[in-house]
């Protein structure tokens, strides 16, 4: 295979996180059967798939909110090689969590803290970085999403789109290697979606490594390097967005996309 001179093949970018055979059951229900996923530096992977297919569970597993019962997660840069079929100690799980930062569907901002306090809580209380530095960085991040002027507001005083942008800044302030987005715009009023997506697109252009669960096909087409179609706990199909969206190989992928584009 000769490398494409314009877009280098993904294998040339450093692997941030490599997941093989990720499995998770809740009681007797297998939610993830075996999910393979590679996140490379500066690349964006979008996860799509029907409700209940396990998209959220994949992200939550990578962020340590769920404990998978099988699969191997490797992070070469952090020297992590975790086999979830065996016991995994808390320290290892925390090191995996520290690689990534999560943006939730329902922003989950802390309602009793101001915008600024929300953003600096992790860097200051957990990472114990110097206050001046953390605040300066927080302000420039807020500035970038157009919210520096609202830094003393409480989350309840912001619009949904503004809240979600603060959620993104709170994640960025942790200086993660990797950003995880779980349907960041699906709880928003339609006219607020664009603001959040454009922030995400800027992040992708800047070279952030991202895994995004989304049903915004236009966004995925524009920003994703790879699209994964998840169905019933397995990756049924994967590929470049144009290929998946224009020529899906699997019948189920095709039907899912059809329903998304023509909901009724």
């Amino acid at each position: 295979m000769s490398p494409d001179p314009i877009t280098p093949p993904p294998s040339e970018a450093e692997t941030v996180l490599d997941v093989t055979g990720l499995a998770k059951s809740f009681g007797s229900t297998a939610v993830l059967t075996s999910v393979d996923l590679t996140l490379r530096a500066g690349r964006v992977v979008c996860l799509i798939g029907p409700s209940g297919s396990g998209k959220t569970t994949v992200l939550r597993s990578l962020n340590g909110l769920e404990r998978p019962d099988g699969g191997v997660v490797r992070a070469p840069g952090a020297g992590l090689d975790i086999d979830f079929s065996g016991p995994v100690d808390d320290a290892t799980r925390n090191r995996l969590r520290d690689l990534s930062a999560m943006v939730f569907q329902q922003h989950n901002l802390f309602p009793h803290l101001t915008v600024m306090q929300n953003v600096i809580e992790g860097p200051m209380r957990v990472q114990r970085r110097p206050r001046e530095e953390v605040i300066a960085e927080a302000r420039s991040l807020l500035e970038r999403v157009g919210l520096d002027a609202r830094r003393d507001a409480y989350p309840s005083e912001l619009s949904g789109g503004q809240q979600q942008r603060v959620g993104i800044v709170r994640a960025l302030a942790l200086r993660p290697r990797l950003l995880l987005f779980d349907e960041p715009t699906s709880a928003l009023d339609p006219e607020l979606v664009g603001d959040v997506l454009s922030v995400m697109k800027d992040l992708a252009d800047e070279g952030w490594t991202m895994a995004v669960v989304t049903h915004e096909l236009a966004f995925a087409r524009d920003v994703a390097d790879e699209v994964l179609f998840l169905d019933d706990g397995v990756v049924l199909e994967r590929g470049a967005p144009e290929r998946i969206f224009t020529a899906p190989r699997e019948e189920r992928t095709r039907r899912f996309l059809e329903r998304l584009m023509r909901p009724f």
Partner: protein
Amino acid sequence: MDVELILSSLWPLIQGAVTGTIPLALVSFVLGLAVALLAALARLSPRWWLSGIARFYISVIRGTPLIVQLYVVFFGLPSVGVTIPSWPSAIIVLSLNVGGYAAEIIRAAILSIPRGQWEAAYTIGMPRWLALRRIILPQAARVSVPPLSNTFISLVKDTALTSLILVTEMFRKAQQIAAFSNEFLLLYIEAAVLYWVICLVLSAGQGTLERRLERHVA
């Protein structure tokens, strides 16, 4: 109506409130809250023996009359050689009593904070105890304010029971003056009015506090 007696007894009764009723309620409430927080956290602990102890404590406190609890400590314990004077007895019993009721309030408040708040705290790297202290408890505290204010107002009235273990708070003062002057109805109504005034002031304070805390709750 004996206006002179009302006026001359007013000062000793107010004194009883200021040096007895109010400090007794305040001290017991603060200690009781500390007990309640520990009991609530123990009750939520995954360790069965810890939550079992907390459950037992809460059940005993809520399942027995306060007056009986006071009698056990003040009149009962001396027969096994443990003699505690009336003031410390009153503070111990009232604190443990408030602790039992407030523990359930605090536990319910902690459970009412959405799961997403725990998860957001975990994703910014917080361990469990830090998430509890920085994220969950401050929100639970706001949720608990209205029911805890009610607990405090009840406590203020309950302090009158400690007159039975000889604490010289407002109601005991009233009993003493009544016995001395033979004006039972007058003195007891006077005491009732004073309790009522104290509770009116506390309710007004509660309203203000709640309005201020209503902001920024999810």
